[in-house]
């Protein structure tokens, strides 16, 4: 049976892992390679390096950080943040990334999804969607949650799939950094509307939140950052908790 994946996100700025609350007020949490090693030993299923300030500061994800993390890891590694062109994706993939995550660039230039899927395969292309509740629907935001994209999250996820995306990384702006739990209605709405896997992100604060997002939220994978960074919860104890609740995991 296919396991539900637990993915650790390394939000990186200037080669250091940082984690903000609602995308602001960042504080340092350490060396990316060192954290990656620890997560790997604990049984993390996958890693994401997100160059969180890249879009704003017009910088590319740092190839050196990717290389340092990828050097001794033999699990999937995705890289996002500021990937705007095929050349940006090439830099990340050549440095050791297995997948690239597109966000703002996919919204402004959806043909990039297809171009990368044709070049590297759909399995290498994640479309990241930052969404915020808007009445009964969910509105998409670009530029690290700063600009309304005037798109509906469910419709945009479906379009991304049609254009060649292999996975959706879905972040709730309302929940990000709050530790109030994943946005299950958002996740379920998107996950049931597409046939590609959906990674839920934003709001992980306790073990129960992961159970919720894999059941009510219909998520295929869940991503978290700070809950793991500060060793509040080990990956291993999280997976044991999930297994005890009848959820398939890799232990």
């Amino acid at each position, binding site marked *: 049976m296919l396991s539900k994946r637990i993915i650790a996100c390394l939000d990186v700025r200037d080669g250091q892992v940082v984690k903000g609350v609602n995308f602001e007020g960042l504080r340092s949490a350490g060396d990316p390679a060192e954290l990656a090693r620890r997560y790997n030993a604990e049984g993390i299923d996958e890693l994401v390096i997100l160059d969180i300030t890249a879009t704003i500061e017009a910088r590319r994800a740092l190839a050196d950080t990717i290389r340092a993390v990828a050097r001794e890891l033999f699990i*999937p590694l995705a890289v996002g943040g500021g990937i705007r062109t095929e050349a940006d994706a090439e830099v990340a*993939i050549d440095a050791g990334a*297995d997948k690239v995550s597109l966000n703002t660039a996919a919204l402004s230039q959806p043909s990039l999804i297809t171009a990368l899927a044709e070049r590297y*395969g*759909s*399995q290498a292309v994640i479309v990241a969607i930052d969404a915020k509740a808007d009445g009964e629907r969910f509105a998409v935001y670009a530029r690290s949650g700063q600009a309304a994209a005037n798109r509906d999250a469910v419709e945009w996820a479906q379009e991304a799939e049609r254009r060649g995306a*292999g996975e959706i990384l879905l972040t709730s702006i309302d929940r990000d950094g709050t530790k109030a739990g994943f946005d299950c209605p958002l996740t379920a709405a998107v996950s049931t509307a597409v046939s*590609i*896997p959906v990674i839920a992100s934003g709001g992980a604060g306790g073990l129960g939140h992961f159970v919720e997002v894999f059941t009510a939220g219909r998520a295929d994978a869940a991503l978290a950052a700070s809950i793991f960074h500060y060793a509040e919860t080990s990956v291993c104890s999280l997976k044991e908790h999930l297994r005890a609740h009848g959820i398939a995991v890799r232990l």
Partner: protein
Amino acid sequence: MIALIDYKAGNLTSVKKALATIGADVLIPDGPEALREARGIIVPGVGHFGATRALDAAWTEAILERVGEGRPLLGICLGLHWLFEGSDEAPDLPGLGLLSGQCHRLGVRHGEVRLKPDTTYRGVSDAAQPDVRNVRLQADVRSLRFQANIEIKVPHVGWNTLSLQREAAILEGVADQSQVYFTHSYVAPLTSETVAVTEHGEPFTAVVQRANIAGVQFHPEKSGEVGLKILRNFVQLAG
């Protein structure tokens, strides 16, 4: 020395890095003639079966020649599909044909329902006989072919279990129900040479081995210690 075939289907970096980690000498041959030096050949690859077009007659001949001499061959993911006769993903393109059968898309089940004459069918739908509702039957119809979409996510992405079928050198030291990392939409059929099965909507070949020919559907280079063990087994076979 292990030859890693670069036919521009995805990125070789990860496989190369994994092989280096386990101490294997790796060569990425410029052309088929460079395969003469190879003690083992790996055909990696992700993406579309159409990419195997780059493995032209010269490559095919050189690979078959080495395999004929008993050199081990390992196909990974798309490389596994290429070992078979072909794939529905690019029906006009033949595979290497070392293994018999055709690769097909996950989640699409083909079949046939036998119908009794002079019977009114209002709908046939259950798990074993997928949805053939709303079909208007002709008087002389005796059977109905169907194509049913199974409710699973495709591509199949993530860690899934290996159910070992029998002993095989490529899986030496790998425990039953070990988990490995998959990312694919098409699968190879089950054959008598299947040594490990994985399920996602349907059972399919996760590992196949016949003598010196082996293939894996998952990515050993992305499957942690279990994956490295399988690569070590292959390197050992290459001697």
